[in-house]
């Protein structure tokens, strides 16, 4: 008897507002971060990052990014690599806020079901993170501290802060 093993992949899809649109969520996040003393931050833009694991190909992920996870008029989406981006020294920071694995991710669960409803293979797991792109000068510990007091709750969230592209 032969056993067919389903190929399993992990894809990261990032969906964000096109730069020409005002980002209200980002403005609210900026106010909260400034309230925590990060006054040097000039702008925050928010995007959503989906981690999809399972029998999902890059093509499936791209088509879901276009037709399911974003609005083609106002959003742009792309498959991103989980590897840290090269530093560019331009004072741009990237803050990813994930729910810890022990906490239920309702958005992720809904995405899984929606894949199946679109006729795509259902991912084994789907998780959704909020990504804040910060423009301004600050140190990593400063950002981590301010985020823990405003945008994330260390009890349920895992936060990844890294330098990034604009």
């Amino acid at each position, binding site marked *: 008897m032969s056993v067919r093993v389903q190929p399993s992949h992990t894809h990261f899809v990032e969906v964000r507002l096109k730069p020409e649109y005002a980002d209200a969520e980002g403005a609210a996040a900026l*106010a909260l971060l400034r*309230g925590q003393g990060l006054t040097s931050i000039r702008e925050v833009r928010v995007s959503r990052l989906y981690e999809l694991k399972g029998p999902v190909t890059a093509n499936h992920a791209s088509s879901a990014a276009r037709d399911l996870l974003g609005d083609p008029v106002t959003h742009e989406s792309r498959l991103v690599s989980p590897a840290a981006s090269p530093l560019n020294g331009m004072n741009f920071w990237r803050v990813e806020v994930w*729910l810890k694995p*022990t*906490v*239920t*991710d*309702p958005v992720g*669960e*809904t995405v899984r*079901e929606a894949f199946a409803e679109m006729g795509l293979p259902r991912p084994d797991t789907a998780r959704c993170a909020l990504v804040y792109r910060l423009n301004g000068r600050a140190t990593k510990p400063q950002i981590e501290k301010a985020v823990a*007091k*405003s945008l994330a*709750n260390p*009890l*349920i969230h895992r936060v990844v802060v890294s330098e990034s592209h604009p």
Partner: protein
Amino acid sequence: MSAPTADAAEFAILGKDAKALRALGAERHLSLSDLEWSAIQAHFKSLRREPTLAEVETLAQTWSEHCKHKTFTSPIRFTEGRKTRLIKNLFAETIVAATESVKKSWCLSLFEDNAGVVAFGKKWALAFKAETHNHPSALEPYGGSETGVGGVVRDVLGCGLGAKPVLNTDTFCVGRPDYAGALPEGAHHPARTLRGVIAGVRDYGNRMGIPTAGGGLWFDDDYRLNPLVFCGTVGVLPQWAVKKEVKPGDLIVAVGGRTGRDGLHGATFSSADLGADAPSSAVQIGHAIQEKRVLDALLAARDRRLYRSVTDCGAGGFSSAVGELGAKCGARVRLEDAPLKVADLDSWEIWLSESQERMVLAVPPKNLKALQAVFAAEHCELAVIGEFTRTGRLLVTHHERTVVDLDMKFLHKGLPRAQRDAVWQAPGSSKPSGGATLKLADALKKMVGHLNVCSREWVIRQYDHEVQGGTVIKPLQGVRHDGPGDACVIWPHAATGDMKDPMGFSVAHGMNPEYGRLDPYWMALACADEALRNLTCVGADPGRAALLDNFCWASPEDPRQLGALVRAAEGCRDAAKGYGAPFISGKDSLFNQSKDEKGKDLPIPGTLLVSAIAPVPDTTKAVTMDFKGPGNALYLIGRTNDELGGSLYHKVLGRAGGEVPKVTSPATALDGFKSLHAAINRGLVQSAHDLSEGGLALAAAEMGFTGEFGCLLDLDELPRDPRIYTHDVLLFSESPSRILVEVRPEDESAFLRHFGKGAKSAPVRRVGSTMANPILKVVGLDGSVLLEEPLKELKEAWQKTLPGMLE
């Protein structure tokens, strides 16, 4: 993590001493007292075996403060001054006794189901419940309040055979958003807590399509470590669906979300002080869309009568839901059949998990297929996890291994009752003392902008209060839709289909912890009074009002705290009797205290939220609180006494003491409310607004700036205690049972005919009139002009406070 089924093995407690058991309990967050441990020990000793871990967990959960309300139902030795008496069961002797003595035929279900149920017309009924979700919201404000809403919606969904939610309410007590002091490690700043809890209520209610149209906000720095989050839901159900019963042989069917490791120990956690070591598993994020699917499928199945009983999986999960449904017969559960989120759950974790959005049904086997089809159509998962039996036992197995085998009687009736001591010392001198002196106009400006009074628009606008299309009186009122309403009026017939029926209902609240600091007894009466007069102001029938109590208190192990709680419960008893308004449901949340930054205990002020619901016979006659035109007469119902204790005026001045507002004659108050209701029903009232925080001056200012008409008030005309000669008392006293009413000149005589003239009738007197000039003008006892304030300035002060702190 131990391997699955390892917990079916014994959990050795026999022969252990109290200290060892306490340590065991602390390690597993069981919150069992020494007395409870010894009862469990004795029970298993008589069975000659050790319990399993799952059995001890089941007992701890079923016997938790959250599920059994031990403080309210255990004996209390109550010392008041020099007198000591024994209260056998505080709940039975106050809330239940008062409700029984009031006896109303329209109460269809009291205290036994997940929510209280009252009749609504001939065919329909309203289920009403308010819950607190304080501890989870302190740890994770967004998730805590979100799952609070989800929980209370499921309570209403699991009431009778299921009610359709038509209104959500939310009330928060938090620290001041501009709190600048220190906080202990891990505590959230009050501004963050507030933003989080508002967002949670917003996201869950809006996504489920339930209007959030009532509630309140109270700021006090003593809530900074223990915020209070009250979530309420009203549902409508047909009267035939009020009763439910489980029959042996019915299948135990779990529907909705899958079971995961979320929310373990939520119930036992609520029985403990909140500290830094709180288990992170007690916190969850809600899934509103999942719950909406459950709602739609369940109501479709209800109308096809496919199940015999239903309850929600709340604190304690399956253990609590199956234990409750099968309490009278017995139940047999196979845990391997429960759909899981993750595969590596221990048996006790499946049994006790508090994963959200789950319900348990009792289904006759012949209906299973049809039920499966209904749930499949809504993409909602369903699993048969066992059946109800005749054995009187709770038997739970996991892959053929026995995990729990308990006698239902011991589980539900075996809880030993510990006696607690309570002490009440009446406060000493009531003379007001200290504080600054302010000009009346300056005090008024400070008061309108005070956090506990100012505009809540910043919060309310985040909620969808229009969905379902039946919000007749909205939370924000007046010509610009931004004035403070007394209560919402809901026409729920989009849910019933009776489109020609003009009847609706109203929900209102009463709460004032400041009064409780002086005397919780009078606080309870004032809360009930406030809720009822708010209902009356919009056109609801105060003679058909039903009440909910929600007590939030610090540790009942402190005799003074427990004494205050007893006083409040006795106040509720006398309020229910006095107003003829039964309590139909309620909840208590205790142990709301934490160590502050210096390691000192910070208890919350004893807090009672009274929620009231009453039918509005004709929603087309409902009334808002804004002045409708110039030249109308203003009548004040109710008497003004020198009652500034705990008032907003004292708070603004920084003054202590004073007489707490007292409802000395609920019957007189009710007479006034009923008379006003009759006048509103005949269309004789243009606007009505209750006098609460800030007294007459604030009520008149709010009615004025909301309607954009001014008014002239003459203090000499006020029905009042003749011993009052000071203007600030007449303007700002918070004497209860008072309502300011606007009546057109041509309706005045007809209006007055509704009010009695006997000694027990509520006083009513013309105190002024409205005018086109948008100012608040007040003439004093000596005829001098005391106040002449432009309403625009007052409104600006009223509107800028919250946005100024939160934006």
